């Protein structure tokens, strides 16, 4: 198709072709086309088929108000062709039509529409119940649009940004841009969202002239240039708003195009003030076959010509109810469209100049007339018009019917922000009756249609936003109010919705194929509130998010006399205002994780790294999943574990010890300077929250460790439980400042002695001792602990010196067979010793008593108000709890039960926490939480595993620990 390429309002580059595929056809559009305009320019009129009746659907609007033009683009279903810019090489195909939209095998569904009244699914298919399973597959096949496979991965690059702003303006039309400029003048940071690919809104394409004689499009372009030149305004184009929330939170997404480094990005702004300048959409006129391809809104027809250089038809009939429709008729006539007739709903109040212009062009103007029916199977070929009383009728041949009843304000963002709407009879609009603080409305959505009035209302909103932020604008606001009063006020609008006719095929909602008749049926059933009718008759619940029926439904219901209080009431608007890909919400999917100072060394040593919480840790250092060599090295020689992920904290100050006494179950008043104290934290239920070691490093100065998973919330926990006490203490998270090396095994002391001058003999540095010494002048905090059940030293080293100390120890132990060991080896080693890991041997309801750590609890410190103390007292002898026990298999050659397998008799009696093959004991051993009735030594446990087929494994509760029960090896 030849484009009009001389218009100053064009947004396309006619000289820059873009080729794409549509089904099997190779087509060409131009740069600046949307998928919809490119298809239209190539003669495509039927874009797809409707949801229920498979009626042909075409281009009706241009901003995604309906699902008419949903297509599949590059494998992604349900892409709105109207709002997607064409790109070179795109593969577009139609949906919901087989073999194609022009001839669809399911087209006969339309003839069966009588069989599907409103509430069809609810009312018909649920009885008898046995029919439902048969009906489901059929409905599934018939309903819904587009197909998506379960393993579909959204293509493209996603991003997310959270810009800071003082003012967020929604809509970069004349009002929005004026508001943004007024706020920017005061130096405020403004974020301006525009859903179209360019700013300008309702004026940027119009050649008509404002009161000062300058064309609208020129004035609008000047405003846009000022916005784009302002350093204070960040304009997001192609960025529809998703939602507006309280306290100025606005979410949106932006569609990217080169050179943007993303295909779509999520935007979230928290602004001090919000200005809604979302303008109007056109109010659809309801008549029979009002959605036939060839029927379109006035703005759609006009913009096709002015913005994309495409003539929307050869011969057109207009049936409109506003001056913009008359303006479009005049302009399209001048551009070469034959206008057979203009039916105008209004009898009076028409713009004189436009009426004269129509007369000069000899275009018949029929006042008080309206279209009642569109004819033609797949596209409009003829229309029937009817006069004011519905008696006089005319039928006119045409290929384009421009139909539009009036305007509907786009109030979604405003209502989400908390505005209350009330119906205004003069404009026929739902207007904001009250606005929440720091929310302002401006522009055409307030009913004003005059360029200057729209601009000034925008400026007023912008000034009000500035005023909100504490900059006095009283004078300027007063001036703007005066100026606005001198300009044309809100224009009178029609309340006309339904043309005379049966309404059988007058579609109030295109997405869900709901007709006016369906709404009547719902009202016959007794529904009287639009909110309920909307659901029963499925009106406005489709992808267009109510763009077509939005305000038509409440108006129609009101006019029918059904509404209980006599006031039209809009239906509730919800997010997302524009359908948004889930992938866009997911954003960049950044995986935040931490590496220990030894990460590279661990990998170089063959460590199999694994993600545990936020950390990467080495599970093992060989192919052997049971880590035999590592375990034997620790039991017979010496090994080293990177334990840097432990939580590490300093707590100091005059009240530090009170804090420790509050959160730890033990008595912290006597932690000697040379000893490490093992203790646990409980929650108020007495359940185990954490365990760790506390050392005293100076006067009122303590250093303590927490388990890896608790490091992130320890400060919060401690501050929470001391919030009512005005205690003087400081707490510092040193988790990342220190690394930890666990040097363990009978040769550990030999290795350590080789790298330090300090005396680390058993006499000088006994079990559970704490020492500070230097390794090559590096200060090391050393604790003699025994988590793995051997002589071991836990060395806390400044993170930046970790590699050095590790390498020194490695070199020092080379002749002794030193080697790194991983988490798997550690797990088996500590299991043999029956040392618990919180989260493995405990869960939400496991108390300190349950895991056998009750001896840590110091019951005589009521002054401390220890967290969990009360519950520990109350549950100490509570029967029926799950207790931690050790078990061996009745048959030592039986396969190892999996962690988490349940222990059963007639019912579930507990579960296996951890079970491993012990190379030291040469048989499997495990820890389990079992009903206290089964916890006595010698009790038999029956273990059920998934897939065991009822063959239960037998285990026996045995004495713990399994390894070195006297603890001699820790003290050697």
């Amino acid at each position, binding site marked *: 198709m030849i484009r009009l390429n001389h218009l100053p309002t064009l947004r396309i580059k006619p000289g820059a072709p873009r080729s794409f595929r549509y089904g099997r056809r190779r087509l060409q559009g131009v740069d600046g086309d949307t998928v919809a305009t490119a298809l239209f320019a190539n003669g495509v009129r039927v874009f797809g088929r409707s949801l229920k009746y498979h009626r042909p659907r075409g281009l009706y609007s241009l901003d995604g108000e309906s699902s008419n033009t949903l297509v599949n683009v590059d494998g992604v279903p349900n892409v709105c062709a109207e709002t997607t810019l064409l790109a070179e090489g795109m593969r577009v195909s139609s949906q919901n039509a087989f073999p194609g939209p022009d001839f669809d095998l399911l087209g006969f569904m339309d003839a069966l529409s009588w069989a599907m009244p409103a509430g069809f699914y609810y009312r018909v298919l649920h009885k008898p119940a046995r029919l439902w399973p048969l009906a489901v597959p059929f409905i599934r096949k018939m309903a819904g649009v587009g197909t998506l496979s379960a393993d579909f991965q959204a293509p493209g690059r996603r991003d997310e940004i959270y810009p800071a702003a003082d003012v967020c303006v929604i809509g970069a039309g004349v009002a929005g841009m004026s508001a943004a400029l007024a706020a920017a003048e005061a130096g405020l940071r403004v974020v301006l969202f525009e859903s179209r690919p360019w700013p300008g809104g309702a004026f940027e394409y119009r050649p008509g002239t404002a009161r000062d004689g300058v064309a609208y499009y020129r004035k609008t372009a000047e405003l846009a240039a000022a916005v784009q030149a302002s350093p204070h305004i960040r304009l997001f184009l192609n960025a529809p708003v998703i939602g507006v929330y309280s306290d100025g*939170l606005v979410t949106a997404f932006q569609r990217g195009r080169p050179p943007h480094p993303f295909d779509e990005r999520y935007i979230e702004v928290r602004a001090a003030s919000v200005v809604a300048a979302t303008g109007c959409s056109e109010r659809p006129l309801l008549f029979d076959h009002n959605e036939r391809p060839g029927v379109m809104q006035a703005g759609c027809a006009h913009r096709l010509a002015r913005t994309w250089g495409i003539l929307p038809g050869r011969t057109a009939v207009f049936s409109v109810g506003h001056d913009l429709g008359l303006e479009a008729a005049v302009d399209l006539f001048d551009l070469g469209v034959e206008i057979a007739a203009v039916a105008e709903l209004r009898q009076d109040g028409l713009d004189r100049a436009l009426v004269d212009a129509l007369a000069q062009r000899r275009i018949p103007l029929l006042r008080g007339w309206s279209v009642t029916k569109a004819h033609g199977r797949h596209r409009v070929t003829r229309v029937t018009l009817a006069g004011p009383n519905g008696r006089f009728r005319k039928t006119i041949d045409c290929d384009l019917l421009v139909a539009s009843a009036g305007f509907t304000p786009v109030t979604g963002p405003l209502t989400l922000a908390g505005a209350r709407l009330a119906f205004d009879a003069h404009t026929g609009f739902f207007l904001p009756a009250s606005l929440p603080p720091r929310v302002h409305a401006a522009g055409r959505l307030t009913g004003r249609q005059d360029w200057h009035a729209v601009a000034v209302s925008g400026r007023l909103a912008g000034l009000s936003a500035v005023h909100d932020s504490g900059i006095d604008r009283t004078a300027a606001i007063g001036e703007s109010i005066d100026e606005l009063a001198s300009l044309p006020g809100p224009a009178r609008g029609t309340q006309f919705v339904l043309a005379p006719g049966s309404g059988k095929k007058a579609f109030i909602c295109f997405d869900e194929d709901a007709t006016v008749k369906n709404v009547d049926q719902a009202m016959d059933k007794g529904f009287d509130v639009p909110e309920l009718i909307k659901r029963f008759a499925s009106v406005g619940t489709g992808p267009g998010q109510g763009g077509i029926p939005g305000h038509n439904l409440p108006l129609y219901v009101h006019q029918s006399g059904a509404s209980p209080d006599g006031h039209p009431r809009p239906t509730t608007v919800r997010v997302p205002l524009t359908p948004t890909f889930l992938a866009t919400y997911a954003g960049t999917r950044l995986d935040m994780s931490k590496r220990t100072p030894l990460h590279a060394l661990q990998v170089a040593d063959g460590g199999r790294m694994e993600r545990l919480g936020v950390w990467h840790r080495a599970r093992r250092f060989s192919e052997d999943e049971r880590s035999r060599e590592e375990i034997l090295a620790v039991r017979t020689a010496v090994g080293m574990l990177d334990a840097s992920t432990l939580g590490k904290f300093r707590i100091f100050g005059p009240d530090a010890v009170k804090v420790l006494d509050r959160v730890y179950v033990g008595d912290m008043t006597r932690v000697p300077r040379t000893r490490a104290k093992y203790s646990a934290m409980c929650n108020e239920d007495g359940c185990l929250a954490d365990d760790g070691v506390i050392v005293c490093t100076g006067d009122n100065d303590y250093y303590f460790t927490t388990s890896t998973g608790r490091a992130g919330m320890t400060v919060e926990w401690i501050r929470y439980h001391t919030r*009512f006490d005005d205690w003087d203490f400081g707490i510092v998270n040193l988790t990342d400042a220190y690394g930890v090396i666990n040097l363990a095994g009978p040769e550990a002391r030999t290795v350590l002695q080789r790298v330090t001058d300090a005396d680390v003999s058993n006499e000088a540095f006994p079990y559970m001792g704490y020492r500070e010494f230097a390794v090559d002048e590096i200060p090391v905090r050393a604790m003699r602990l025994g988590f793995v059940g051997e002589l071991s030293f836990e060395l806390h080293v400044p993170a930046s010196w970790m590699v050095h100390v590790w390498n020194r120890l490695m070199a020092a132990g080379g002749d002794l067979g030193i080697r790194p060991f991983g988490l798997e080896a550690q797990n088996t080693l500590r299991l043999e010793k029956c040392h618990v890991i919180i989260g493995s041997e405990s869960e939400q309801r496991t108390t300190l008593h349950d895991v056998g750590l009750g001896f840590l609890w110091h019951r005589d410190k009521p002054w401390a108000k220890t967290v969990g103390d009360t519950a520990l007292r*109350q549950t100490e002898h509570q029967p029926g709890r799950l207790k931690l026990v050790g078990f061996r298999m009745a048959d030592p050659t039986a396969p190892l039960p999996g962690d988490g397998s349940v222990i059963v008799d007639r019912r579930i009696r507990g579960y296996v926490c951890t079970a491993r093959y012990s190379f030291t004991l040469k048989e499997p051993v495990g820890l389990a939480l079992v009903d206290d009735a089964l916890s006595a030594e010698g009790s038999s446990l029956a273990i059920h595993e998934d897939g065991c087929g009822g063959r239960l494994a037998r285990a026996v509760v045995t004495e713990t620990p399994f390894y070195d029960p006297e603890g001699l090896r820790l003290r050697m």
Partner: protein
Amino acid sequence: MAFTITCPICGPRSGYEFRYGGEDKGPRPDPAQMTPEAWCDYVHMTDSRPGVQKEWWYHRAGCGTWFTIYRDTTTNLEVAPDSPETVA
């Protein structure tokens, strides 16, 4: 969480930066006088009244302070401490 919270140290900030710490129930009562049931109620039960309540928040992504604000649970907005609704 689409609301702002006024931290006593950092000022009004996005609600996403905070962790909720529950209704304010005052300092821990003396457990010696309490039955296990009464203690359990203190630990777990909340009033959950519609309207303005005093509650604890922690500035997790900020200064790390626990503090109380008043919030209207029906509008999900913070209420100034000196406004008349805060008098329970």
